[in-house]
């Protein structure tokens, strides 16, 4: 066990429990605006006007102040234009950006790793203006209707916009967001009869979508290339019915001997909703050799791999070759404590973006009902086992029985939690390391082979149907 007073590498869980000045007020302004979107802005009531004012006050000391005040007044009168909605989305985003920054300051103190370089953003990038305007118009209509006013016709209006955007890689971020958002709205129609409304979440997706309809909002530019050794820590999977993304978290050691840094490598693809589980790995696998390296427990050697200011590698197999075996737990124990964290570009700062690689050991695990909690240095830390992908060897039971854990520190709904990426645990009375991304590159595990076979069959049926029915 690592003694609690050792520098670097041991998380000060007590610091995560501290209160942050102004946090409750900031979130109250966000909640106020989120309630406005539940009812919609066709015929605003006095309570909605007050909520809009509350959001405007939250950004009163910022350069957004006058534009947001005007937008709030117009919206309260039921006369908001698309530009006004953009201003309100920007205000909400700015408030949550400040929440992100405050939380990240707390995280940095708790994990004690080298600091993050500030990012200065430059706008830019030309994007198809027409389809962006169509997206903005649909989102504006949503805000007028409100979540309670949703119906099928309203939601299906997004289909054309999404179909027009998806083929263009430059619009993929917005297209993927709107596609997943619309699927949830459709599943909740009619809004008037919905049992409950995920108010924070849908307002998040709405605001994010709004900002992404502005030219130049999507993505920090590639700023350089890196050459050196990539030591994977684990894989995070994200998915909605018609898209999936795998992100490999890794420590990168530059060949020139400069300080190592935390990086991510991502691969994402749109998918039919019937491609699930192992089918997702099959879809992503051919486009990033790193997925195979991860499940084989190997490092990779990179040569001139493009990288963004946020520490995202823009993966290309041409710039990577398999390296020596590298145990992620050795990487987490030895290399992670001194690796520099990447910063997030200002426009993208939101608590949902917090996903900080951490290594934990010497904790206690306690299970109440469905929730697992680690006790780290005397402080409780919730474990988000729901994020563990189904198509993999890691299970909530293995996490509950674990003695060491590589995870992502996240924050949601008012508290921090840890998402397990890999654990050292006991399997059939033997010590073993189990990884959430253990099947990314394929597997010989009996259950895994069965899942792979079923997924292959499903995809080949769809491909056969596509070949016959889709007009080329």
């Amino acid at each position: 066990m690592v003694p609690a007073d050792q520098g670097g590498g041991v998380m000060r869980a007590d610091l995560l429990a501290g209160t942050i000045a102004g946090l409750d007020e900031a979130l109250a302004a966000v909640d106020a605006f989120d309630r406005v979107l539940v009812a919609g802005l066709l015929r605003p009531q006095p309570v909605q006007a007050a909520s809009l004012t509350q959001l405007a006050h939250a950004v009163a000391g910022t350069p957004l102040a006058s534009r947001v005040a005007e937008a709030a007044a117009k919206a309260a009168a039921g006369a908001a234009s698309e530009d006004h909605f953009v201003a309100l989305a920007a205000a909400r985003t700015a408030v949550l950006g400040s929440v992100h920054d405050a939380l990240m300051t707390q995280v940095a103190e708790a994990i004690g790793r080298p600091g993050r370089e500030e990012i200065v953003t430059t706008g830019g990038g030309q994007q198809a203006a027409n389809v962006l305007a169509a997206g903005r118009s649909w989102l504006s209509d949503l805000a007028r209707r409100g979540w309670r006013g949703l119906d099928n016709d309203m939601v299906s209006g997004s289909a054309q916009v999404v179909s027009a955007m998806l083929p263009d890689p430059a619009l993929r971020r917005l297209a993927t967001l709107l596609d997943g958002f619309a699927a949830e709205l459709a599943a909740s129609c009619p809004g008037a009869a919905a049992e409950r409304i995920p108010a924070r979440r849908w307002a998040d997706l709405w605001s994010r979508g709004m900002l992404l309809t502005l030219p130049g909002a999507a993505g920090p530019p590639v700023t350089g290339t890196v050459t050196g050794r990539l030591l994977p820590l684990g894989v995070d999977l994200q998915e909605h019915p018609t898209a999936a993304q795998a992100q490999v978290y890794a420590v990168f050691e530059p060949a020139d001997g400069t300080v190592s840094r935390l990086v991510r490598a991502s691969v994402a693809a749109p998918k039919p909703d019937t491609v699930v589980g192992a089918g997702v790995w099959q879809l992503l696998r051919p486009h990033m050799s790193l997925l195979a390296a991860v499940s084989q427990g190997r490092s990779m050697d990179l040569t001139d791999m493009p990288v963004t200011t946020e520490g995202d590698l823009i993966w290309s197999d041409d710039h990577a070759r398999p390296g020596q075996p590298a145990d992620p737990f050795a990487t987490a124990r030895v290399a992670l404590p001194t690796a520099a964290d990447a910063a997030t570009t200002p426009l993208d700062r939101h608590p949902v973006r917090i996903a900080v690689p951490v290594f934990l050991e010497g904790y206690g695990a306690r299970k109440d009902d469905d929730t697992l909690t680690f006790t780290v240095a005397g402080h409780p830390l919730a474990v988000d086992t729901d994020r563990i992908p189904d198509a993999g060897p890691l299970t909530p039971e293995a996490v509950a029985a674990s003695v060491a854990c590589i995870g992502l520190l996240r924050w949601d709904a008012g508290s921090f939690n840890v998402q397990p990426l890999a654990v050292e645990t006991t399997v059939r009375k033997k010590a073993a390391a189990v990884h959430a991304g253990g099947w990314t590159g394929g597997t010989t595990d009996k259950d895994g082979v069965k899942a792979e076979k079923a997924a292959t069959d499903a995809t080949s049926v769809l491909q056969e149907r596509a070949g016959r029915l889709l007009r080329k």
Partner: protein
Amino acid sequence: MPDWEKSSTARVIPPARPRKLAKVPFVELADGRLQGVVSSGSDIERVYVSSVATGTYTFACSTNNNRPCGGARGSFCNHILALINEAVLQYGAGRVARYLRVEIADGEPDTQSITAGMSSTSPPHGDTRAAAPVFSRFLRHLAYLELAPTTAPLPEMQWFPPTRVVA
């Protein structure tokens, strides 16, 4: 548990459950209908577009070339029965029953009780106007296979964590 309404990552849609696609390549709960595409048993080039409406259970079935299905006259044809069966596999019986608004008198809903619950009301035979939009939604669904993957990050996917909770 954290407050669902204040969670940025609240799970809204349970993930589709894996199923064999050969017989019914496409099924969805959308536009106020259970709708989908059923492969013909005899002709590999032909598919049937079938649907059942929420609440009224008005049903329709025709080929993709808009020829009416011979089986769907007084009651559900085999294509519609197959569609219900596969919808239950993909979405779970509870979600299908809720979406179609089928009251199950006692016990948990299953394919049989959902089908019986709708058939017993002698649902009307609808027109096949929905067939064209459903078929084009199926083609759109297939087209997702042909979109290029990307290795540029999609930060917005952080809002879409997986879930192990099934429907």
